């Protein structure tokens, strides 16, 4: 139990204090109070990470953590969008106003805009961090991205199959077979898994690459745009759910997007001073 809790600390914390913390737990004993204390400590370390070392290294680590947090928050927020849209509009909630439809459309536009900025950020990091890592033979850096790449390929093939089936057999579509529904369910589960591994992979790869500060600066500036898009998405989506006054699922999922936006905002707020330190160096 205590080993699991110790493993719950952020990687940067484990690298720096993990061995000492484990030794202290061995010395004090791993009773229920110690377990609770370690669990609370792990949560606090995630919510407010500490960075040690020289000021320039602290700033670099802060920016790297900020980028990772914003990325994970963006993925969580984007995952919420289709769920809420489906809950509100497919089938339409009785009495749902045109305003709600418009708000849901606005959310999709914000996803596109934020996605474009996030893609720009990802391209910059690929060019500045991942390609040099590949050239220097550090495959370890790329490995966390492989599950997402494989799942993306499988999901695309699945989507293509569904599209071809719909086009080739339009009469069957309204009354799908059980096997088809099962395959569709597997595809949907794969989509969720893709978002999860897609959210977790890049932060791990970034951590393994330990990119220099200059490689992170512009992506971090762009990431503030992703945070802005995520905040707009969460606010508009929450407004749509409140106006529709519909369902626990839509409320809960919209709440997840609000939490994700809060997390990204907090991280951006903490990253901006580090960007200034980076500029000064």
């Amino acid at each position, binding site marked *: 139990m205590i080993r699991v809790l110790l493993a719950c600390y952020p990687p940067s914390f484990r690298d720096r204090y993990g*061995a000492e*913390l484990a*030794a*202290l737990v061995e010395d*004090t004993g791993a009773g229920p109070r110690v377990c609770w204390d370690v*669990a*609370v*400590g792990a949560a606090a370390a995630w919510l407010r990470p500490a960075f*040690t070392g020289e000021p320039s290294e602290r700033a670099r680590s802060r920016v790297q953590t900020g980028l990772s947090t914003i990325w994970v928050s963006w993925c969580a927020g984007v995952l919420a969008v289709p769920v809420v849209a489906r809950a509100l509009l497919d089938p339409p909630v009785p009495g749902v106003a045109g305003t709600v439809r418009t708000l849901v459309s606005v959310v999709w536009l914000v996803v596109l805009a934020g996605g474009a900025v996030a893609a720009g950020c990802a391209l910059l990091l690929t060019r500045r961090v991942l390609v040099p890592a590949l050239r220097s033979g550090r495959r370890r850096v790329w490995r966390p991205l492989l599950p997402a790449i494989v799942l993306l390929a499988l999901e695309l093939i699945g989507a293509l199959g569904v599209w071809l089936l719909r086009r080739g057999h339009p009469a069957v579509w309204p009354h799908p077979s059980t096997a088809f529904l099962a395959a569709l369910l597997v595809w949907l589960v794969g989509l969720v898994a893709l978002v999860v591994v897609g959210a977790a992979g890049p932060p791990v790869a970034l951590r393994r690459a330990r990119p220099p500060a200059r490689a992170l600066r512009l992506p971090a500036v762009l990431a503030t745009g992703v945070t802005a898009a995520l905040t707009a998405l969460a606010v508009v989506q929450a407004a749509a759910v409140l106006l529709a006054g519909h369902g626990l699922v839509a409320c809960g999922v919209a709440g997840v997007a609000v939490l994700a936006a809060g997390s990204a905002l907090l991280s951006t707020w903490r990253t901006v001073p580090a960007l200034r330190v980076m500029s000064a160096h």
Partner: protein
Amino acid sequence: MVRRADQLSWGNPPLLILGSLAGGPKHGYAIVQDVAEHAGITMGPGTLYGALARLEERGLVEALPGDERRRPYRLTAAGAQALSQRLTEMSRFARTGLARLSVVQP
């Protein structure tokens, strides 16, 4: 988690750690023991290292070379100054409180 029997707890972990390190460099377990002995407060491992990380980040303590699992920490000059300032304030508060009590309950 900081455990203390009474309800008027005064110690917060960073202050307790700085106070402990004022007596010389110590590793984690030694800090826990020292604080328990001198302040009657038991600090959990998560609390201790959370506070130590924050103090190190602010440059108030620094790690000394040593065994990775028993790394000692010491106060920096900034840490000593911060501790001194806080203890002076606490001392002033204590003197004022005691003086007021002596008037109310001579």
